[in-house]
C-alpha cells in the first residue's frame, strides 16, 4: 500500500515538473511582453516584471492595421487551407482504402514515394511560379501546403480500412447508393476522429507556416502573421550583425525586445485558445488502431 502511494507520488511529481517546464516559456513570454524595454536590458527576463508597461502593445497599435491584416490573412489561409486539404486528403485516401479499386497498389505506392523523395526547393519553386503562376497571390500560401504530406493520406487510409467495416459499404451498395453518396453519407460521419486529427494538424501547419510566405511573396499585403514575425526577427538579426549598414533612422525603428515578445504572443493566442476544443478528438485520433474491436 505504502509503495503504491510513493510510486504515485513520484509519478505525479515528475509530470508536474514536466508540465511546469512546458508552461514556463509561455508565461515568461507573456510576462516579457508586458515589461518595459529598459528593464529587460538591465535585468533580463523575469516572471515578475519590475516595471509593468503596456508600451509594447501600444507600439503594436500603431501598426495595428498591418498586424490585423496579417492576422485576417492567416485566418483565411488556415480555414480555406484546412477545408480544402481535408477534402482532398479524404477523397484521395478513401478509394485507396477500398479493396476493389483497380490500380490501388500502384497509387498507394506513388503516395508513399512522395513521402520519401522530394524534388527539392528549386524545382518546387519553378513549378509553382513558372507553371502555376501563383507567386505573390494568395494561392501561394495555400497550394504548396495542400497535399505535401503523404503521411496524412496514409493515416486516413488506414483509418478507413480498419474502422469502416466493408459490410456497411456493401449493404449501402445493395440499397442502391452511388459511390459518392456512400462516401458522403456513411464514411465521413463515421470518421470524425480522424477528420479532427488531420484537420488540427493541417490547421496548425498552415497557421505556423512562414516558409511559403518567405519564398513566394514579396508583396507585403500578403504577409501572414508568422511571415511578418519571422521577417522582423531575421531583419533585426541582420541589422545587429551588420550595424555599419544601417542608417540611424532605421535602427530606431527596430522593434525592441518587448515588442517582439508581444508579436509572438499575438501569434500564438488563437492556437492556445482553439486547442482545448480539439483535444478530445486529437487524443482519440492518436490511439487510432491501437485497440481493435
Amino acid at each position, binding site marked *: 500500500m505504502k509503495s503504491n502511494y510513493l510510486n504515485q507520488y513520484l509519478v505525479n511529481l515528475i509530470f508536474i515538473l514536466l508540465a511546469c517546464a512546458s508552461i514556463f516559456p509561455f508565461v515568461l513570454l507573456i510576462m516579457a511582453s508586458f515589461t518595459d524595454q*529598459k528593464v529587460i*536590458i538591465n535585468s533580463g527576463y523575469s516572471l515578475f516584471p519590475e516595471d509593468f508597461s503596456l508600451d509594447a502593445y501600444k507600439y503594436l497599435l500603431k501598426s495595428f492595421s498591418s498586424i490585423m491584416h496579417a492576422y485576417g490573412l492567416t485566418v483565411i489561409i488556415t480555414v480555406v487551407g484546412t477545408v480544402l486539404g481535408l477534402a482532398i486528403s479524404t477523397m484521395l485516401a478513401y478509394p485507396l482504402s477500398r479493396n476493389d479499386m483497380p490500380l490501388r497498389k500502384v497509387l498507394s505506392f506513388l503516395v508513399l514515394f512522395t513521402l520519401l523523395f522530394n524534388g527539392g526547393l528549386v524545382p518546387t519553386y519553378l513549378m509553382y511560379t*513558372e507553371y502555376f503562376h501563383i507567386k505573390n497571390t494568395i494561392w501561394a500560401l495555400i497550394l504548396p501546403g495542400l497535399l505535401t504530406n503523404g503521411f496524412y493520406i496514409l493515416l486516413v487510409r488506414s483509418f478507413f480500412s480498419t474502422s469502416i467495416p466493408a459490410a456497411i459499404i456493401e449493404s449501402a451498395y445493395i440499397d442502391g447508393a452511388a459511390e459518392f453518396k456512400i462516401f458522403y453519407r456513411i464514411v465521413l460521419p463515421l470518421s470524425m476522429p480522424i477528420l479532427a486529427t488531420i484537420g488540427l494538424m493541417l490547421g496548425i501547419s498552415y497557421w505556423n507556416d512562414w516558409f511559403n510566405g518567405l*519564398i513566394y511573396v514579396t508583396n507585403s499585403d500578403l504577409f501572414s502573421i508568422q511571415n511578418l514575425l519571422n521577417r522582423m526577427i531575421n531583419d533585426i*538579426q541582420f541589422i545587429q550583425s551588420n550595424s555599419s549598414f544601417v542608417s540611424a533612422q532605421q535602427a530606431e*525603428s527596430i522593434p525592441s525586445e518587448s515588442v517582439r515578445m508581444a508579436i509572438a504572443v499575438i501569434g500564438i493566442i488563437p492556437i492556445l485558445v482553439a486547442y482545448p476544443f480539439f483535444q478530445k478528438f486529437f487524443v482519440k485520433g492518436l490511439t487510432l488502431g491501437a485497440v481493435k474491436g
Partner: protein
Amino acid sequence: MQKKWKSVSGLLSVVLASMLMLSACSEGEKKQQAGDGEQADTSKPYEIVMTLLVPSTPPDLQLVADEINKITKAKINATIKFIPFSYSAYNQQMSLMLAGNEKVDLMLSGTFFNFGSQVAKGQLEPLNELLTKDGKGIVDAVGQDLINAAKVDGKIYGIPTMRDFAADNGLVMRKDLVEKYNIDLSKIKTWEDLGPIFKVIKDNEPGMTPLVQAGNTAMPASFMYGAGVDTFGDNLGVIVDPSNSTQIVNLFETKEFAESVALVHKWYKAGYINTDIATSQELGSSLVKSGKAFSYILNLKPGHDIQESQLTGKEMVEVSLTKPLQTSNNITNILWAISKNSKNPEKAMQFMNLMYTDKDIANLLSLGIEGKHYVKKTDNLIALPEGVEQSSYPSNQIFMGNNFLTYVWEGNAPDYWEQMKTFNDSAIKSKAVGFNFDVMPVKTEMAAVTNVINQYKNGLESGTLDPALIDEFNTKLKSAGLDKIIAEKQNQFDAWLNSGKK
C-alpha cells in the same frame, strides 16, 4: 492478360493526361512571350524591374515610383517597377528568382549578397560594353579605380554604390560623462590610453560598464588590429600592412592580434568589460541607450558621432585611433548589377546611368518626394516635414546609387558628402583592393576552419578567454587546414597581381 493491360492502360492514361496538361501550360506561356515580342517596339516604354532592399515595404513606394517614372519616361522611354525585399529574405528569394528566369533587370548584389556565386553561375550580365555605350556617367561619377575593384577575370559585373569606402576605428563614448570627469580627449593617441578612462568610469559610476561590445560580431580587439590588416572579409589569411605588403599570413599568429587580445584581456580582468560580452546579443548602442554602458569600439566615418547619438538618444563623442583603411571588400560589399534574365540590358544600364548622375532621381530613390517625405531647410539640408515622426518612405541610402548627389539630413554637417569623399580619398589603400578570392578549391577546409574560429575568436577578442589559448587556437586551425587555404589564396592573389590586376 486483359487485367494486366487494364492496369497498364490506366497508368498510361494518367501519365498522358498530366503530360498534356503541363505542355498546355508551358505552350500557353510561350505563345504569350512571342506575342509580347512582336509588340515590343520602341514606342512602348520598357518596364525595368528593380530590386529594392528595405526594412519594411514603404507605404508610399508607388508614389515615389510614379515620380521616378515621370522622369524616366521622358529621358529614356522606360518605367521602373520596384520589388521590395526584406534584408534577411533577400538572398534566398534572389537565388530562387535567378534560377527560375523570373523577370528582373537591375539587382542589388555584392559580396554580402552572393556576388561570388552569382558570377560563377553566370547569372550576371558583364557590363564592360554597356558601360562604354550607355554608362559614361557612371564611370565619371564612380571613378575607374572603384569600378575596377569589382572586376572578376577582366569583366565588370557590378558597380559599387557611393558611400564610405574605408573605415577608421575608435571609441564612441558618452559626451556628458566625458565632460563630467574632464577627460581630455586630445591626449588619447593609442589604445592603451583608453585604460585610464575606463578606470575613471568604473571607480565613479557604479552599475555602469565602461566598455561593451558594439555588436555580437564586433568585439573590441577586432577593431584594434583591424585598421592595419586587410582581412579579405573572411579572416582566413590576411595581409598585414596591406598598402605595402602582398604576403598573406595567418591572422591569429600575428603580433597585432596577440597584442590586441592581450590588451582587451587586461581590461576584462580589471572589470572594465561586461562579463557576458562574448554571448550578449545586444548592440552596444542599445546598452548605452538604457544607461548600462559608457562606450564601445567601432569603425567610424564622417558624421558617425551624430548617427550614434541618434541611435543611443544621448550625445556621443568619438575619438579616432587609427588611420582609415580601404580593403578589398569595403568596395565590393554592395554593388548594382544587371541580371542575365534582363530582356533589355541597355535600358537597364541607361537607368543605372541616371541613378548615378541625375540629382532628382538620386534624391527620389534615397529620400522620397520633396515636400512629402522631407522638406528643404537650406540649399542642402533637409528635415522631416512638420508633424511627421517617421517618413513613409524609409529607405537605406547605402543601397542606392550615387548618394553624393543627395541632400543631407539636418543635424549632419552640410558638406557631409564632401567630407565623405575626402575621407575615402585619404584612406590607406590595400594592395588587395579588387581581388576576389574563389573559395571553391578549399571549400571543405573553409568549413572546418570556420568552425574552429567560431570557438575561439569571439572569446579571445572580447577579452573573456586567456590569451594563452592563442597557441591552442592556432594548432587547431592548422589541423583544420588553414595553411592550405592561405597557400591557395596566395596563389590566386599572386596570379591576379601578375596579370596586371585585371
